């Protein structure tokens, strides 16, 4: 471990970096259930939380894990759980409840090859749509997708910040290949940390706030908080047959994310100035994409790349802008084109989906070969 004045260097796996990022963000409650390839997160939490005074619970299933995380969040904790494909499916009802009750939680999905049990030790990014649509009804989540161990650490901190700021479940969608990759990471001394806003007496589900996010009381402070997953008014009273309350609540839950999407969405652009062909990439695949783009650039090919760090809310206007000047958008993914389909919604240029679902990462050479056909 090399010490600099304002920076410390570690050598960690993606899964380990999640734990360190969570601790840095102030996470002090973790509940989980073993599942490959996410288990190292829980194992490290069981040791590290003992050192720092956090509360760790290994629960009887993923449903119990996410519900105890929700209970802990209302008791005042920054709380997290981590899982993988099938466990993520079990957590969907809890994610919907957290969205409905505006409970800040962080859920990590270290994606593996599905569907169902699939290939537990193999990589995929097949849960992008599950992350958006997995629970019932119309709701919003924020989903982040890192491409390195360094960024896994940073986006874990950011996941907590966004969850606290917008009172919403934030999903960190990593992949097996990132979870088990070991890399050097640099951790700076000063990192921005956000925490939920309390305002005694304020309506905990109110609509008075300009950004649509009401302040959040916690259990035990004497606020007599009333929390329900049923449709509720600004004070939490069930209103299960009032069309106006239902409409107002569902609209606000969605609009507080939709209206703040420019503040939430993060991305990186490479070589975009003169590129008629643009690779739209995310997660581990973006590493191979950037390698391919650089190799083709060295041969004088006009190709650029957009790397999405935020998958939900989807960067719609960014995609629209890039689609307006590009001829081809090339979307390589370890699924059957889940993000490519989303890209198509916003552009009229050609969208090429490169889908690979064999449980392997997509190699740069494969991409170079594919991309040559479109240049």
């Amino acid at each position, binding site marked *: 471990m090399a010490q600099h004045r304002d920076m410390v260097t570690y050598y960690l796996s993606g899964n380990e970096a999640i734990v360190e990022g969570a601790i840095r963000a102030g996470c002090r409650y973790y509940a989980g259930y073993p599942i490959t390839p996410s288990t190292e997160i829980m194992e490290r939490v069981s040791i590290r939380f003992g050192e720092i005074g956090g509360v760790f619970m290994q629960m009887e299933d993923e449903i119990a894990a996410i519900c105890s995380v929700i*209970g802990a969040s209302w008791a005042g904790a920054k709380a997290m759980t981590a899982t993988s494909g099938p466990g993520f499916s079990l957590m969907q009802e809890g994610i919907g409840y957290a969205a409905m009750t505006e409970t800040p939680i962080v859920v990590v999905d270290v994606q593996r090859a599905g569907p169902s049990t699939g290939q537990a030790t193999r990589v995929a990014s097949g849960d992008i749509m599950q992350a958006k649509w997995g629970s019932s009804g119309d709701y919003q989540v924020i989903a982040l997708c890192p491409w390195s161990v360094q960024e896994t650490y940073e986006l874990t901190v950011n996941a907590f910040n966004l969850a606290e700021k917008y009172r919403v479940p934030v999903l960190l969608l990593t992949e097996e290949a990132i979870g088990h990759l070991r890399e050097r990471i640099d951790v700076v001394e000063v990192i921005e940390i956000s925490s939920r806003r309390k305002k005694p007496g304020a309506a905990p589900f109110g609509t008075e706030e300009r950004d649509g996010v009401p302040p959040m009381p916690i259990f*035990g402070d004497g606020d007599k908080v009333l929390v329900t997953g049923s449709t509720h008014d600004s004070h939490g009273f069930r209103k299960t047959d009032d069309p106006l309350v239902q409409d107002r609540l569902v609209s606000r839950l969605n609009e507080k994310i939709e209206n703040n999407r420019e503040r939430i969405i993060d991305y990186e652009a490479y070589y975009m100035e003169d590129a008629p062909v643009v690779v739209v990439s995310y997660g581990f695949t973006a590493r191979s994409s950037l390698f391919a783009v650089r190799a083709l650039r060295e041969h004088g090919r006009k190709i650029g790349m957009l790397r999405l760090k935020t998958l939900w809310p989807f960067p719609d206007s960014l995609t629209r802008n890039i689609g307006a000047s590009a001829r081809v958008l090339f979307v390589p993914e370890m699924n059957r084109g889940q993000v490519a389909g989303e890209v198509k919604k916003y552009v009229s240029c050609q969208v090429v989906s490169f889908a690979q679902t064999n449980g392997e990462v997509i190699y740069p050479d494969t991409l170079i070969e594919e991309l040559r056909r479109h240049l």
Partner: protein
Amino acid sequence: MVRDMQRYLRPGLTSTPFCPGCGHGILMGLILRAIDQLELNMDEMLFVSGIGCAAWIPSPHFNADTLHILHGRAIPAATGAKMFNPKLRVVVVSGDGDLADIGGNHLIHAARRNMDLTVICATNMIYGMTGGQVSSTTSVGAFTQTTTQGNQYRPFDLCKLVIAAGATYAARYSVTQPFALMASIKTALQTNGFCFIEVLSPCPTQFGRHNQLGSPADIIKDLIDRCITRRKAKNLSPEELRGKIITGEFANDAD
């Protein structure tokens, strides 16, 4: 006019949503009277419930922090809150379908961990809110919307179940035994570790109408006849015990 226990009720509420003859209102009153007699501070209490009629006993009525969570998941949510803030006195109030059917796994695991929770299971032996389907506590032979020829499966003995899993305290009473039930709630609230009380609560609307006990008086009388104390049960033959519900404390391992 100020109602009894008014200060324990959330301001603005004027009535309960329970059907005429439902036992849940009696249970609600007894929980609050137990809290009143123990002089507990409602600001330090958290009530967690799942989905179903009984989940509405604390939410929104109790003037404390109340968490009305997903069907079957009251116990894990209570576990998270209690583990993060041990100063909270956490009470789970929910129904038999919620705690024993869909949430049965959480029930036994919380008992195994001896989690410091008071769990009150309002057992009406039926799914009331969804229109009267069989539950895991419905007696053999009972008629429900999904057992029109009579229930063929044995019900859980929930007290035996949680004792086997490691509960510190387990008891069963009926709302027709209000003083014994209130004393049991007081004991549970003062006992550390996993405390479980199964409360027989009549449901004339769903259970009653399927089983020729449609009037509130009929189903209450039936419960009074069927519920017998452990002491009385000791001297009865298996023949005489058929159809009876044995009530009392089945475990009290408090130090």
